[in-house]
């Protein structure tokens, strides 16, 4: 058994990854805080917390609430702005042998493009564009809830970006496949999904909302089946690669996502209850492949139709 050779490396938009495992934006900072618990060199890539062209203060607290097998968050994309990000966070990550995916947020097309341009000449491997941000110019409706806006923002960032562009899709839509097709038509190199599902929790003892923001994004194991369904639907609809995420908390969950059509997988909320889960999943995927004598992980991608 032990002599059976396996390949866990994947090619993602032309970027070789030693394995398909990364972290979900916003759950891992820029890796610094986790680096004395997790060997970042083991990960295929680190995906960083969303960064804008200037610092964002985020929402009032409470910003998180626990729900059954899940959680709600309304952090509000607090971030230090692109300058500090490049000087501190990116410099930190470049010490490691892992790929860097930078998650980008903005309130307008100009703000997204600004960040993308600032990153153009840096040593970043891929950009992930979070289109769940409210578009201030269009009355605060998220870019990710309207296919026309999603296509427009994809085109805008594509013309300025030097790295491949991953459009991160919101699950808060009627037809996720339509959103993915709009991004592909706009020139996206890849899509990632799912972002969080809008939810609400009420504290019955205090008779108030659990989150200061009233609503928050739901994540964690409770959303996993929804994420698997959406990754599958998107995989059938587009020809660009997918990063699958949403509730991944075990090797089995990660394999499921790959079988549904994801080339890479991100682990998010699970980092909060199992800080070394990413390493366990990297090792677990290898064990799974040996157990079922699968020589190449690429044979698993979208294998279930």
């Amino acid at each position, binding site marked *: 058994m032990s002599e059976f050779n396996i390949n866990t490396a994947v090619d993602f938009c032309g970027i070789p990854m030693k394995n398909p495992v990364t972290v979900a934006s916003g759950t891992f900072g820029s890796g610094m805080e986790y680096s004395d618990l997790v060997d970042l060199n083991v990960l295929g890539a680190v995906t960083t917390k969303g960064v804008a062209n200037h610092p964002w203060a985020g929402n009032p607290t409470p910003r998180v609430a626990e729900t059954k097998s899940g959680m709600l968050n309304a952090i509000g994309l607090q971030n230090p702005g692109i300058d500090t990000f490049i000087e501190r966070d990116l410099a930190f990550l470049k010490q490691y042998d892992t790929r860097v995916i930078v998650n980008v947020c903005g309130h307008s097309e100009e703000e997204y493009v600004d960040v993308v341009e600032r990153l153009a000449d840096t040593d970043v491997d891929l950009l992930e564009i979070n289109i769940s941000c409210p578009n201030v110019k269009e009355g605060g409706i998220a870019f990710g809830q309207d296919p026309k806006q999603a296509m427009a923002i994809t085109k805008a960032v594509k013309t300025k970006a030097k790295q491949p562009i991953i459009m991160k899709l919101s699950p808060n839509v009627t037809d996720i496949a339509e959103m993915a097709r709009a991004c592909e038509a706009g020139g996206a190199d890849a899509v990632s999904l799912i972002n969080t599902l809008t939810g609400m929790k009420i504290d019955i003892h205090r008779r108030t909302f659990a989150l200061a923001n009233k609503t928050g994004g739901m994540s964690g*194991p409770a959303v996993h089946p929804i994420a698997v369904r959406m990754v599958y639907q998107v995989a059938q609809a587009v020809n660009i690669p997918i990063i699958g995420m949403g509730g991944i908390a075990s090797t089995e969950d990660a394999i499921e996502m790959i079988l549904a059509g994801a080339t890479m997988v991100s682990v998010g909320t699970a980092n909060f209850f199992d800080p070394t889960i990413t390493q366990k999943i990297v090792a677990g995927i290898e064990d799974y492949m040996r157990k079922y004598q699968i020589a190449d992980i690429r044979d698993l991608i979208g294998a279930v139709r």
Partner: protein
Amino acid sequence: MQKTEEMATVLEQQALGSNIFDLKLKAPQIAKLAKAGQFVSVYPNRADKLLPRPISLCGFDPKEGSLRLVYRVTGEHTGTEEFSRLQAGDTIRLLGPLGNGFTVEPGKKAILVGGGIGVPPMLELAKQIKAQQLCEQTIVMGYRDANTFLLDEFEQVATTVVSSDDGAVGTKGTAIDAILANHVTGDVIYACGPKPMLRALRDYARAKGMRCFVSMEERMACGIGACLACVCQSTHEDGHSNVKNKRVCADGPVFDAEEIEL
């Protein structure tokens, strides 16, 4: 700050009056690194409860490799209710030690104030001040009612005065009322407890020209400074995000009261 994930073994657990529990754990790696005022993330075993519960270190013994947590069960079907059923030999997963802890100013007469479930972390601080002969100290404990958990242990360390919300023990009212009634004086306040108490102590310290250090509480997810869930507003730009938000779990939980908006 060094931290580690450790599977702790329960040495013993007992109730300290209604709903307050005293849990002694074997966790040598965390005990070795711990400092007074730091906390641990305690992970419920139930898979549907995802988030760690932050609980302050009420005590630790690096030689024995043990930790002591004193906590309140907040309600039915909660994580803390699950912890209250732990028995000797059971295991529970921890991440720690987390946060900055208290830094004592040597030679400056200290007033240690604990209110409600902010009482436990002050015990280890009081013990360290005494053992290392850092400064003179007076202890002020604010309880809800007659359940004066840990009071006997504080009294063994230093002069202790007490208040209770209902007047059952000590001065009726708040910790501030006990400070005034007993003419407690000092140079620096170290405090942990509910926000209104911390606010009152900050104002009192300001009026008297004293320094005041407070331990803050906020909802957490990662517990280690990565997710930005647990912020409190700061008076100056924070070093992490260039806004005015300090992370309670990583920049705190202990802050100079003038450094944050209470």
